[in-house]
């Protein structure tokens, strides 16, 4: 990703492209400006600005209820934005939803395959609905099934498939009509690690083979690491955007994780004696320092509290999230507001689980 050098953290600042140039010719396949979505009194998305480059794997990372699914639904023309603009593959999602639909592929959070039909039939109907030329249909269907390793199950009814197979079939379906962008909403949720790795393998192959831009949401930090660039979203706002390395550099240096006899006292001591902020996280204290190897001996010597364990590691995206929001991404139930928002959205969106 050669053009990442200019990527900066966007926080409350409008992105650089003026509205007039939102025609998709800038090399950005998705452009979002000031996107807001309200469900009744609840503001699920509160002014998002975003550019996704052509051909990249873009991750949309955040806890449940942060506004990921709402944003992706707006970009896929399933939900109308309250205000703001979004241009996908050169077409405005509000004014030309039909054109957007023809140019994107979708993999939903909940499987949307027809269980009564076979894998091949599901792809056949998709090809028909997206106007894939008749003479190309058989070859494309075969290639798509091969790509996701389902060629031998082409004529089995989908009802006999495992969760991982269904997800792979959905990916095959999503790229069958050669979309410019493939959207995936939590593509690996509920899958075991092995299956998840396989889904990723197929996603990378899709990008390799077709150059399709991949836009995905996830709340798995490990997955976000595999994206070219990620945006971290929290409470309906983007709090950080860049390559995983850029974001990790923001944490700077190393992360020292300690457990002590008295974490509260230790935190105060660390702050007083070393001028570093210690964040409590799941029974441990985390301190961001420039050089971990140098800091640890000083820390052990300098604390009056008993130090039980010390770990030094490179910062992860978890740390980035923790630093930006003051809480870990897995603390989904900590925030009553987010839970409330999510509940309201579910109600508004109807039967989604």
């Amino acid at each position, binding site marked *: 990703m*050669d053009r990442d050098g200019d990527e900066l953290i966007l926080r409350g600042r409008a992105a650089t492209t003026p509205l007039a140039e939102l025609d*998709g*010719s800038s*090399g950005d*396949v998705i452009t979002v400006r000031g996107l807001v979505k309200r469900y009744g009194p609840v503001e699920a998305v509160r002014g998002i600005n975003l550019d996704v480059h*052509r*051909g990249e794997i873009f991750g949309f990372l955040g806890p449940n209820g942060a506004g990921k699914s709402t944003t992706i*639904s707006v970009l*896929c*023309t*399933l*939900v*109308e934005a309250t205000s703001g603009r979004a241009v996908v593959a*050169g077409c405005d999602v509000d004014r030309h939803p*039909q*054109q957007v*639909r*023809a140019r*994107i592929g*979708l993999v*939903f959070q*909940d*499987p*949307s*395959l*027809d*269980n*009564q*039909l076979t894998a091949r*039939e599901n792809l056949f*109907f*998709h090809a*028909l*609905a*997206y*106007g894939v030329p008749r003479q190309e249909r058989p070859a494309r269907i075969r290639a798509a099934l091969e790509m996701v390793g389902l060629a031998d199950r082409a004529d089995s009814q989908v009802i006999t498939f495992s969760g991982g197979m269904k997800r792979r079939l959905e990916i095959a*379906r999503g790229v069958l*009509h*050669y979309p*410019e962008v493939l959207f995936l909403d939590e593509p690996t949720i509920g899958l075991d690690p092995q299956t998840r790795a396989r889904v990723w393998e197929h996603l990378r192959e899709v*990008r*390799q*083979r*077709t*150059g399709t831009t991949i836009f995905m949401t996830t709340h798995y930090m490990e997955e976000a690491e595999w994206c070219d660039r990620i945006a971290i979203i929290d409470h309906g706002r983007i709090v950080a955007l860049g390559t995983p390395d850029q974001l990790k550099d923001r944490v700077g240096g190393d992360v020292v994780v300690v457990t002590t006899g008295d974490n509260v006292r230790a935190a105060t001591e660390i702050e007083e004696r070393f001028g570093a902020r210690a964040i409590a996280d799941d029974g441990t204290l985390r301190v961001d320092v420039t050089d971990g190897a140098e800091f640890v001996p000083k820390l052990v010597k300098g604390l009056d509290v008993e130090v039980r364990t010390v770990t030094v590691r490179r910062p992860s995206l978890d740390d980035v999230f923790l630093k930006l929001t003051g809480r870990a991404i897995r603390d989904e139930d900590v925030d009553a507001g987010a839970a409330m928002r999510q509940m309201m959205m579910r109600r*508004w*969106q*109807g*039967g989604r689980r």
Partner: protein
Amino acid sequence: MSTVTATRTAEAVALAPAPRPAHVRVSFTQAVYVIWLRDLIRFYRDRARLIGALAQPVLFLVVFGVGLSSALGGGRIFPPGLTYIQFMFPGVVCMTVLMTSIFSAMSIVWDREFGFLREILVAPIERSAVAVGKALGGATQAMVGGVLMLIFAPIVGVRLTVLGVLELIPLLFLFAFTLTALGIAIASRMKSMQGFQVVMNFLMMPMLFLSGALFPLAGLPDWMTVITRFDPVTYAVSPVRTALFSNAGLSPAVLDRIGAEVSIGGYTLPLILDVGIVVAVGATVLGFAIRALQARD
């Protein structure tokens, strides 16, 4: 589009398939065909559902038909040559169509719950094509169900003629299309299967009972006569019964005595008007169905 393609990385372009044309248009007809064909494949594969849809009409035919024929003393109140079970037979054919249509339309709720509707709704096809395709799919299924019921005609003693059946098929299809469209208009506003029972009890059953499918519409109290004339199914049962019976050699006098043809204020509606009413209702509810499917959050 060419400027856009040019910005792809060299590696991506080398591996990329031929760039898709800028405007792939899926024609209305093709979109309708997709939805219709899918419905029919599912219908064929899920034969249990077909048996389920036929079971209730058969039960009505056997239990009510035989039971009431005996209770009414072999159908003495009907003109000579017509038993109750024969009278109700066209009504039961209509009942099959009614139930198959509504069941098939209800699958839209099922699809919503299992996500498939989303796949269709994000495809670059017109929502109106989704509604029309679905209505045609349901209508085809219901027509097949109705025609299958004709197997019982010889058993209950209704004589079938080629002309009668040929006249019947388009009638059943139109009737089924209208009912499926009605079902879709309701189903696309429903979020879960729980509402289904409500639809069954407060819509399907009254529509069936008030249509003249199960008893003659002649000689009813005035208030009930008025209600039956507001039931769209009335205008479907009447042509179906007339088509079956007149081709089976029943005289117009007999047809008149059993109130086979609907009359309003002494004016007997000709077949074309019955069909016209069914089509008009169908077109109206189809409009509602399209509107419901077009709604975005």
